[in-house]
């Protein structure tokens, strides 16, 4: 089996700060995703990537950048952290299409 590792588990930043979240997977999956989950809510898609160096915007991409430098890693940058962005950020990967998504354990973002 494979695993998805997200770092850090907890991220604390100041308002206006640029912050980067990282995700690594060893499934050898083609597609990777970044979702945001606000407290008590479902997940919303920020960015996804179907292959190395590919980036596709989700519904919530404003205020975020992403980078897929290699097949196994997918990074998300909060360009200017805001208090209303405090949430859990979840990375996922799959073989693409209708295949099952596998999730990491998340990064909890706090903005002071």
């Amino acid at each position: 089996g494979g695993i998805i590792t997200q770092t850090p588990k907890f991220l604390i930043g100041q308002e206006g700060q640029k912050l980067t979240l990282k995700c690594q997977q060893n499934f050898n999956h083609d597609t990777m995703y970044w979702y945001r989950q606000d407290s008590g809510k479902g997940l919303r898609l920020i960015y996804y990537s179907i292959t190395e160096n590919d980036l596709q915007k989700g519904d919530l991409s404003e205020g975020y950048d992403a980078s897929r430098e290699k097949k196994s890693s997918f990074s998300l940058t909060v360009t200017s952290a805001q208090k209303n962005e405090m949430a859990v950020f979840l990375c996922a990967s799959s073989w693409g299409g209708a295949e099952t998504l596998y999730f990491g354990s998340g990064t909890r973002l706090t903005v002071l």
Partner: protein
Amino acid sequence: GQQVQQSPSSLVLQEGENAELQCNFSSTATQLQWFYQSPGGSLVSLLSNPSGTKHTGRLTSTTVTKERRSSLHISSSQTTDSGTYLCAIDNTNTGKLTFGDGTVLTVKP
């Protein structure tokens, strides 16, 4: 865009009782997945069921595509079933899932 509505928003059961969770969606889904999110936050896929009925262990999912609804039945609930159950759909075949807000299930001993 697509909308996914889940009901009830929360459910409390005694151990051994059955649970019935509902998911309604606004547009035709080519993919529908049920996920379990533990109290600690990790998310795992339970079932992929875009149409028909599927069973795995104590779980049964029935999706009626034309009526844009799916249900998840949990039989003989256990305390370890407590957590949040999320329904997600995709109608683009890209894996871009739209999630509902979930049903929080609490099973008491």
